[in-house]
């Protein structure tokens, strides 16, 4: 009895703030919330509208592009850095301390930092671009450049995460196979391809999963930097749901989008976890 009693308070919190609201989201997604009257059931109407909503489709595409680009570039950069710096060296402490900084700065503040750098009045980034190319580029108000600018911010903020997790993974690998391969005269490239990568797979899978899930629900930096604009060029899914619910008060429609997103995320996580499990057995 005691074991369950100790868990009970946690369970109550989870029930009240996670399970119950989740059920309510499903319920709300089947409803309409008119301003003056109580909510009314509309069946699957919200989901039907969702399927024909070009804005939502566009928003999902933007989110996907953001997630894949950011996560992919962060992974490659993090891996290269980790491979180059895997041996112990004198500066390691400083590097580690420095790289922690972007991760612990509040995302809102990260947004502010890059607003300062990107601003066309006297931003450092804009100034450098202007000196190099002679054009005053307003990246955040360009429909083509705003999303890459946001991706760059994400890379700055989260490459350290990839680096630290991959470095820890590489440093915890057993040394014997590598020594044997070196004795046999394998090239560094072959060692990387046939030893390091396969042995590192569990760590890589977790790193990519954590990062991709976070990037897929990015909000704070986008809110601070572009508010989804110009137009809807950077309107990621979470931001669109936020606007739908809290600016246009369409709670039911927002709930149906949220459920759609949740199913995508859950499916993706389950897929990655399963693929990883099957291969490692």
């Amino acid at each position, binding site marked *: 009895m005691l074991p369950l009693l100790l868990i009970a308070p946690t369970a109550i919190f989870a029930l009240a703030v996670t399970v119950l609201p989740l059920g309510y989201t499903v319920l709300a997604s089947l409803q309409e919330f008119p301003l003056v009257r109580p909510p009314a059931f509309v069946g699957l109407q919200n989901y039907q509208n969702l399927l024909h909503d070009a804005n939502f489709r566009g928003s999902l595409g933007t989110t996907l592009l953001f997630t894949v680009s950011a996560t992919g570039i962060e992974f490659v950069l993090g891996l290269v850095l980790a491979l180059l710096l895997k041996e112990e060296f004198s500066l390691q402490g400083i590097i580690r301390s420095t790289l922690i900084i972007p991760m612990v700065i509040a995302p809102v503040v990260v947004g502010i930092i890059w607003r300062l750098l990107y601003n066309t009045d006297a931003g450092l980034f804009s100034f450098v671009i202007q000196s190099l190319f002679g054009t005053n580029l307003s990246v955040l108000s360009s429909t083509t450049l705003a999303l890459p600018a946001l991706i760059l911010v994400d890379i700055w903020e989260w490459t350290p995460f990839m680096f630290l997790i991959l470095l820890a993974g590489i440093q915890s690998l057993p040394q014997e196979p590598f020594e044997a391969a070196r004795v046999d005269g394998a090239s560094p490239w072959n060692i990387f391809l046939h030893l390091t990568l396969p042995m590192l797979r569990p760590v890589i899978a977790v790193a990519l999963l*954590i990062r991709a899930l976070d990037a897929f629900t990015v909000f704070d930096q986008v809110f601070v930097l572009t508010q989804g604009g110009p137009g809807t060029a950077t309107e990621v899914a979470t931001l669109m749901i936020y606007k739908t619910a809290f600016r246009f008060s369409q709670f039911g429609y927002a709930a149906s989008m949220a459920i759609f997103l949740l199913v995508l995320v859950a499916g993706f996580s389950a897929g990655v976890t399963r693929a990883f499990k099957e291969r490692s057995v």
Partner: protein
Amino acid sequence: MSRWVSNTTKKRFWFLTRLTLLLLALIITLLPVYWLVNTSLKSPVEVFASPPTLFPQNPMLGNYVSLFYRRRLGDYLLNSLIIVGTAVLLSLSVGSLAAYSLARFGKSRLQQKINFWVLAPRMIPPVALVVPLFLILQRLGLINKHLGLILVYTAFNLPFVVWMMRSFFQEIPVDLEEAAMVDGASRLRSFKDIALPLAAPGLAATSIFSLIITYNEFFFALILTSTPAAATLPVGTAALIGKTQTLYGEMAAAGVVAAVPLVIFALLVQRHLVRGLTMGAVK
């Protein structure tokens, strides 16, 4: 001999490549942060200087003064401290109990299922919960109140707390507690007097981690609080942007106030932090 020479050249080449890369990574990481501090110390005129000045020509604290006197940043800071402090304490006390239970009695099948369900909420995107949480808290009159955000933050910290504390409790040998119980101590007594003190470093690491996550949280804070009566520092900072499009100095100062204490804190305790950030994927 020639082979030896070529080996040293090769080594030197790699050493230099590595060093260059390191310095580059350091500069790219630190320059934006430096720019924030730099801008926060500039006068409203100097902020627009072209080319931008690398050091504030007449460093001044005017931006900070204005933030606290005119923009009520102190109120937001106090709200953050109250909400974050309470939520971390609450989730640590509630979560440790569950973590202990899972660590000590976690072998049965029911418990293993509970293990999974403890971590599952972490996978749910916050946006899937925010509409009902807003509607429920609105009905309870808890919108723009400390308590509303405290409850939400506690619940969202719990998966981490339970999961991290469980691994710390598991590292404590069972024998110690069994010996105490043979001597007549109750299970709760042995938890309080033996397991909890031994897990103190774990409690510290876990609280640091939840503190950072909660202090930086923006999404729920934005939706569930709005005025200086209850809004947290990130919300107050973001609100500044909308109102003061071109007051970059004040924006930067607010960023410094929101970020610097935490950065210093994080650097002091970084070892624990990496473990939490990577969710124990690597120890």
